[in-house]
């Protein structure tokens, strides 16, 4: 990355950073095009394609029928003949109507073809709840996508990463599932975690897929998060710092490939691990990260690893029910304290 020195800061939302990345890549590469529901004139329900229709027109920014199986399948066909489609699945919760095109087709064509037919496409999809949209519009499903081979899976936690990961995703010769969290997106109507809005260089830069970030350094306990939970973990770390506990916060950024080395190096250093995830708890991300540490950093682990995740129940509508279930800084800090025997 070659950001000019002394440039003035340009704080963007993730929505704007995504749209900017796509636009830049569309300017550079005529094979890039965008497909999905309401991504044209409307600019995307989550604002991440705003301005593209006006600049590139209907031929390259195609509103589709409500036919996810067909248009995601079509994206695979386009990719096979030299295009680089960026496709939107409006809410990840809708994966159930089109998962075959994603996990059996996009994900496996490269392998089944022995590398003859790679599938350079990006599937961007919104995740997360907390705003009362109930159980079919609030899920994260990170574990669902990360479990199935052949897909890269990225989850930006801030606008800088959002742009850099989008550029990497579009240029990647493989299908990349790009999961953006509604609570971070920067759409006024969804509210936005402050830390997600940050300085985004106008230039082109890549955030590598498969490399976690150390969002805060520390030596006493490792807090692993992704997407929204990175911010809760940072808040928890600030809280813990008041008690003199130095937490290291890792932003996974990418689930596939998973940056096992960064997680392990941190856990080997701190000996303590808390995983924060707003996806369902069991058989998902939090289990995998704990298993990783237990298998490969067992000698260094000083306490039982812990996790703060969404419980294994459908996501309820009422804020009285939903809010208490979501991971937050207090729960993460409490879990961290428990690993330190300070519960």
């Amino acid at each position, binding site marked *: 990355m070659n950001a000019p020195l002394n440039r003035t800061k340009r704080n963007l939302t993730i929505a704007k950073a995504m749209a900017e990345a796509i636009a830049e890549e569309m300017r550079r590469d005529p094979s890039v095009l965008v497909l999905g529901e309401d991504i044209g004139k*409307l600019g995307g329900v989550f604002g991440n394609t705003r301005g593209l229709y006006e600049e590139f027109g209907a031929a390259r920014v195609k509103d589709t029928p409500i*036919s996810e199986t*067909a248009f995601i399948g079509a994206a695979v066909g386009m990719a096979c003949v030299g295009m680089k489609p960026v496709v939107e699945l409006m809410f990840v919760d809708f994966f159930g109507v089109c998962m075959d095109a994603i996990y059996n087709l996009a994900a496996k064509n490269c392998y089944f073809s022995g590398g003859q037919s790679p599938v350079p496409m990006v599937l961007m999809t919104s995740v997360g709840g907390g*705003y009362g949209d109930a*159980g*079919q519009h609030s899920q994260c499903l990170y574990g669902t996508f990360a479990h199935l081979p052949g897909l890269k899976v990225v989850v930006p936690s801030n606008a800088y990463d959002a742009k850099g990961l989008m550029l990497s995703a579009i240029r990647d010769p493989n299908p990349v599932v790009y999961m953006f969290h509604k609570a971070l997106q920067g759409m006024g109507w969804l*509210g936005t975690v402050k830390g997600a809005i940050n300085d985004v260089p106008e230039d082109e830069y890549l955030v590598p897929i498969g490399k976690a970030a150390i969002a805060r350094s520390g030596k006493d306990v490792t807090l692993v998060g992704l997407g929204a939970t990175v911010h809760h973990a940072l808040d928890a770390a600030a809280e813990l710092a008041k008690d003199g506990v130095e937490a290291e916060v890792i932003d996974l950024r990418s689930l596939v490939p998973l940056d096992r080395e960064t997680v392990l190096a941190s856990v080997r250093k701190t000996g303590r691990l808390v995983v924060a995830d707003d996806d369902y708890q069991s058989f998902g991300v939090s289990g995998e990260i704990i298993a990783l540490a237990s298998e490969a950093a067992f000698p260094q682990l000083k306490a039982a690893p812990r996790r703060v995740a969404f419980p294994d129940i459908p996501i309820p*509508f*009422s804020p*009285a029910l939903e809010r208490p279930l979501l991971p937050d800084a207090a729960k993460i800090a409490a879990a961290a304290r428990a690993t330190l025997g300070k519960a």
Partner: protein
Amino acid sequence: MTPSQEQRRWMYRTMLLSRRFEEAIAAAYFEGKQPAFNMANGPIPGEMHLSNGQEPCAVGVCAHLDEGDFVTATHRPHHIAIAKGVDLKAMAAEIFGKQTGLSGGRGGHMHLFDAKVNFSCAGIIAEGMGPAVGAAAAFRQRGEKRVAVSFIGEGAANQGAFHEALNLAAVWQAPVVFVIEDNAWGISVAKKDSTSVTDNALRAAAYGMPGHRVTGNDPLKIFDVAGAAITRARAGQGPTLIEIETYRLEGHFIGDAEGYRAEGEVVGLKAKDPIAVLRQLLLQEGTIDVAADVRIQAEAQSAVAEAIAAARAAPFPAAQAAFEQVFA
């Protein structure tokens, strides 16, 4: 088929009730969301899809149904729920996320369930179609005279589930009627940009079933066509597909800036507000007089006010309740 005077009054009253209900919901929805509109805030969080203008579809069809008949609706469910007889108080409380709600706040506005009247809805496009076919097949198998009706939007007619459900219904000769509310829009995408036929009723032929299109958002015409289809289904003669031209007077959801609509479109639709049209007709033909109208309006207003007040007054569920009813 022509509705009786009693049925006409029921249709008018029910359309009014739905409209007043949604006006009250919209007002409550805006509370606490200003100055910066944030969907998470206020007494009703999340998305809110209003059916204002589409009431004729609900009453024209549901006038032929009773409690035992099975209805599935969509993310835009209020008018249908009300016409199907869902408990208004429990529905309001659900939308406010209260313990007294239909499902104690677990579902919210896109997941209204009232098993007593066999009503449900869902947030996934066309998800209710399979269940309607299955319920209808069960009725047929058990020799019951009950029918199922599945409501969807015109945008949903391009979803795979639509095709599979219609074919399965036809193969099983299930007593089910599929009703498409064609409000011309799927969020911001116009029907003509998403659908390869102008008239989805044409698609019925792909399943060897009758298909009808009803124009003009007219509750009486809808009553007629739906009545024939439901009678046919009850008589064991199989499924029907109906597409109804209707009007979405509001945005896709509250907060939608509607920049994609042509200038004057909404004004034009509002000028044809089906409630005003029906009122005019009923007055003209003498089915109601002005006094009756005033009374019907007042009753609708007070039923809604009561439901909303009760919803507001009701307690929130205890946090621990979230863990209940995951499994039966």
